[in-house]
């Protein structure tokens, strides 16, 4: 009898631990997408491509330049991705700003070009990987968890906190929030809308890269991951409410736990279905998402 109780407790602990890990992973994937939309009102469909680009740049630096330090490779890759994001706005999106469909088409086309370009350029097969920051695993309440996942949880929480502090106590962060809340009023106060959008694209792309550096050591750097990251980012944002950071985190936890529960009690191959099913339910019950502010369905992506 004791054995059965012990097994049940272990089973629940497993779900809680891996549910939290999965949720933080999802929120990290979506954070950059949400930031860009909340400030620049641009749905950045190149998000997944920028995610993979960062991983690939890091891989090249580590593997083609012997003895290149891992932290420096990470820093360079994230900076390059941030610059790419800024350039995408400065030279392409600025011309279609405010035209939602054109923005979607433009960013999706850029993403597609980057991803398929990487494939064409040699990013093929399963041998492109990044090393974990710390190798090995630990028993946590009787459940085996690898250090990289624990790091993801820790760094994820710190990232959310830093972003909160940045947008509430930093001059640039406050300007970003100002634009996000009321663009016209912010412009009247001297905040440059386009420059803010460029900064938001750069930070959003940098966040996509940051997530890639943390998450890619769990798997491989492959083109298909770029598409999956985009799907999950959109799912999380639609459910949480486009542009809502709180909604993003809450939605990540909803989908993250739903996936783990599905795997534990239903079947593993419904994991992807859960995210898509949650989008449908959200669109039916509350089309603007949990914390979404848009009321008109036409405004939604």
């Amino acid at each position: 009898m004791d054995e059965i109780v012990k097994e049940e407790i272990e089973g629940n602990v497993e779900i809680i631990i891996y549910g939290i890990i999965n949720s933080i992973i999802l929120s990290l994937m979506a954070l950059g997408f949400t930031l860009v939309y909340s400030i620049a009102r641009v749905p950045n469909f190149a998000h997944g491509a920028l995610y993979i680009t960062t991983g690939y740049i890091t891989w090249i630096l580590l593997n083609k330049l012997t003895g290149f330090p891992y932290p420096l490779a990470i820093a360079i890759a994230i900076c390059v991705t941030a610059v790419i994001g800024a350039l995408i706005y400065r030279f392409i999106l600025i011309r279609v700003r405010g035209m939602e469909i054109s923005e979607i088409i433009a960013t999706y086309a850029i993403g597609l070009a980057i991803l398929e370009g990487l494939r064409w350029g040699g990013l093929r097969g399963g041998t492109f990987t990044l090393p974990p920051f710390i190798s090995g695993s630990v028993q946590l309440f009787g459940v085996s968890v690898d250090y990289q996942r624990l790091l993801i949880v820790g760094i994820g929480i710190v990232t959310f906190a830093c972003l909160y502090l940045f947008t509430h106590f930093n001059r640039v962060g406050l300007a970003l929030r100002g634009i996000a809340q009321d663009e016209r009023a912010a412009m009247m106060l001297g905040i440059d809308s386009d420059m803010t959008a460029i900064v938001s694209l750069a930070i959003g792309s940098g966040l996509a890269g940051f997530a890639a550096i943390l998450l890619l050591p769990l798997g491989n750097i492959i083109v298909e991951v770029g598409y999956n990251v985009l799907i999950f980012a959109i799912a999380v944002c639609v459910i949480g409410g486009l542009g809502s950071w709180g909604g993003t985190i809450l939605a990540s936890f909803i989908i993250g736990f739903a996936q783990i529960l599905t795997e534990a009690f239903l079947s593993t191959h419904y994991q992807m279905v859960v995210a898509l099913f949650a989008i449908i339910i959200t669109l039916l019950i509350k089309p603007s998402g949990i914390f979404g502010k848009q009321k008109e369905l036409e405004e939604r992506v």
Partner: protein
Amino acid sequence: MKKLIYFSIGIIVVLFCAPIATFAQEKPIVIGAPLATAFLYGWDAERGIKLAADEINTAGGVNVAGKKRLLKIEVIDTRDLEPGVPVADALLAVEKLILEKKADFIVGGPVRSEAALAAMDLLSKHKKISILTTGVLTPAYSKRIAENYGKYKYCFRNSSEVPPMMGDFMALLEDLHKTKGFNKAYIMVQDVAHARAGGEYMKKALSEKKWEVVDMKIYPTGTTDYSQGLIDSGKKGAQILFLWMDMPESAALLQQWSNMKLKSLPMGFMNAAEQPGFWKATGGKGEYMIVNLVNGGNAPAKITPWTMKFVEAYKKKWGLEPEGYGTSSSYMAVYQLKDAIERAKTTESDAVIAALESQDFMGVYGRMRFDKKTHQIIHSWDPKEGAVTGMIQWQAGKRVQIFPPKVAEGKILLPPWMK
């Protein structure tokens, strides 16, 4: 003086024009290779085909009734392994090879079973001989040829198929049952048709042999977290993790397995674990994984005298070892065609079919013989009798052939935490 000038001109003409005239005499034999070139099973096949063609051309070409003809390879990307690409696209690629590139023979793919099965009618319509070398494992291919020989006699396959592969796995598992007392297996497969079928096939086969299949999990393509299934397998006391996945992300499964130090031995058909780069990619966490490379020679081994010769030639030309399934068979197919054409003394289809059916020589992975009814390469555990499988285990960074016993170069090792 005039004589000297005429003589010099004559010498120049002979020197510069004669070789051109010799090569221009015979048009090359065109081999069309429809392959999913962005994927392992496509690019390694392409390399194998090109290597064989280069070797044959360097040696003078194919002797067709006394006339030497060079081989020309035309590769086309079928994209049939990419998700969402319709079968029709692969068929268009095959048709383009036949009609535009004027391919005399087809070697390689299409790589996905559905596309290869659909291409059979096309090959029959154009009366083009095809040797399938990679990707397609379905027994439906050979069955179809046997059922309608007159129509599908143009189709051959020199690579293994699911039933013999499963036989190889079962022999290995039965050996582990006898020597180590293993009797519990946990199956983890990808959510694609061939992997689900492979998982179901293995579940049935193991149950019939009194093994306990404690669970079977199906994972969507792109999964990077296998923790729940792995923890579950540990709780249920699985000693064998039987895996069937062709997505690169499955390398993460082995990393998690190694981190958790599960008391189970992973084995199966796993695309990610085939390539030499797998070791570095997993930081050595894939050690002890047993992988079926379908045909011998896809990793270094001493199966026949030709095996290592092929491996060395491949390394010299491409700078790395043969990477996985589809390499040795694609290389071999070009030599099989050469042999058949030379014996048939023509490139005419019916004569070459007859020559392929009567073919019998020692190749890279054993004796090369086609079954006359199914046009399937004859499989055996003895290279003197037929084509042998390439079953390897990752040991200290190397792919070591561990099955069949006649060509094994090492024994199965268990992870230290299992002892």
